């Protein structure tokens, strides 16, 4: 899966967790907590949704790796390439 695809999936799930966030207006460098105002419950819901959708279980120690759409799309694409 390419980073463009993981980015689209990330933004789609983000929009599901926080429906007021329009994926079209999110910048690649927007920080989930500082810029988009997600709280710890939102982040957990997002991580849960990504796990269900992509099969990638993001450990808490990696939450920093998904703190912006840019970082997240790279991280998810990398994790998907990893052998199980």
């Amino acid at each position, binding site marked *: 899966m390419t980073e463009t695809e993981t980015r689209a999936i990330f933004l789609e799930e983000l929009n599901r967790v926080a429906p007021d966030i329009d994926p079209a207006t999110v910048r690649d460098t927007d920080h989930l907590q500082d810029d988009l*105002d997600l709280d*710890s419950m939102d982040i957990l819901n997002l*991580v*849960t949704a*990504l796990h269900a959708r992509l099969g990638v*279980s993001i*450990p*808490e120690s990696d939450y920093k790796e998904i703190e912006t759409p840019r970082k997240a799309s790279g991280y998810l694409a990398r994790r998907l390439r990893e052998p199980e």
Partner: protein
Amino acid sequence: MEAGTLVEWLVNPGDTVARGDVVAVVETQKGAIEIEVFEAGTVTELLAEIGQTLPVGAPMARIGDGEETGAEPKPPEEETRPAPKERSAPAPPAEAEAPSEKPAQPRQEPPASAAGASPAARRAAQEAGIDLVQVKGSGPQGAIVLADVEAQMGQATPTSRPAGEGLSDMRQAVAAAMSRSKREIPHFYVSHTVETQPVSEWLAQQNAERPPAERILLGAVFVKAAAMAARQVAALNGHFTEGGFVPSETVNIGMVISLRGGGLVAPALADVDKMSLSDVMAGLRDMVTRARSGRLRGSELTRGTLTVSSLGEDGAEDMTGVIFPPQVALLAVGAPQIRPWVTGAGVEPRQVTTLVLSADHRVCDGRQASRFLVAIQDCLARPEEL
């Protein structure tokens, strides 16, 4: 909350309902609320129509047990839940507003000409300095309801209502509850900073082994610990009513949830002291999701016996909260911070969290508040027992 507008019936005449079933959805100041039925039986008649705005406590439907009860729907009484014998599904619960209608403090009564005004309308008028004589009532028999006073306020001080009308309503609901709290409750505050490094480490270890759907947030640990502490300090767990403080048998922890787009709600989980930590987390997660999608149940907004307000896992160190009436205590949990901490003979950087308890001095004193905070500290020191 003064009234609600019926937006959806989820039952039809002839349907059988059990106690606790959700029968309708009502739009209120605090968003859509699911209305539960407090009776079991068969729906014989729907009294309220879609789109109709009903005062709190108005009968919405008639429920029979097979025999016709023939009960006349009573004219809606302000903020009064129908007695069970009416066998009707109540309009949205009066929420925390009810006991304020007869405050302990004597208050200057409005002029007799304004007799047909709801207590909330009177209160709002009094606060805004509006003479009720000038207000035209739109309620039953021309009674003045809150909306009428607000309309008058709108005329007196033209305010541009924001595009999201719900937001403004929400702010009004928060403002009304908090103003009342600060007016009526003699708050006092006790704070305590506790080391939360061990509990955070324990949680990280637990979560490392769990899939995301089963992970637990530190916030759930505080809610559970607060429930255990409330079990020990009964003077902080309950409601202050006209007759004084009524301690609650159950520990229902209200959780302040900030809504994206603004505003707060504080629905409560029931019997938190008896739940496992995983169940508390699952309950909170479900409640937050429903709060944000606007599908809370009426009972969830009224059953709280003590509220926890948390600043989250990042942010400011401490907060001094306002009690949510008719409750008598609110625990504000600051965001954990790394601070120098004395451990044994040395000082080390450790994660600490500041707890501030706001309590009602009519009901308890610093001693109980202190005991409560120390009880939480003890719970947090032994997270595996939570």
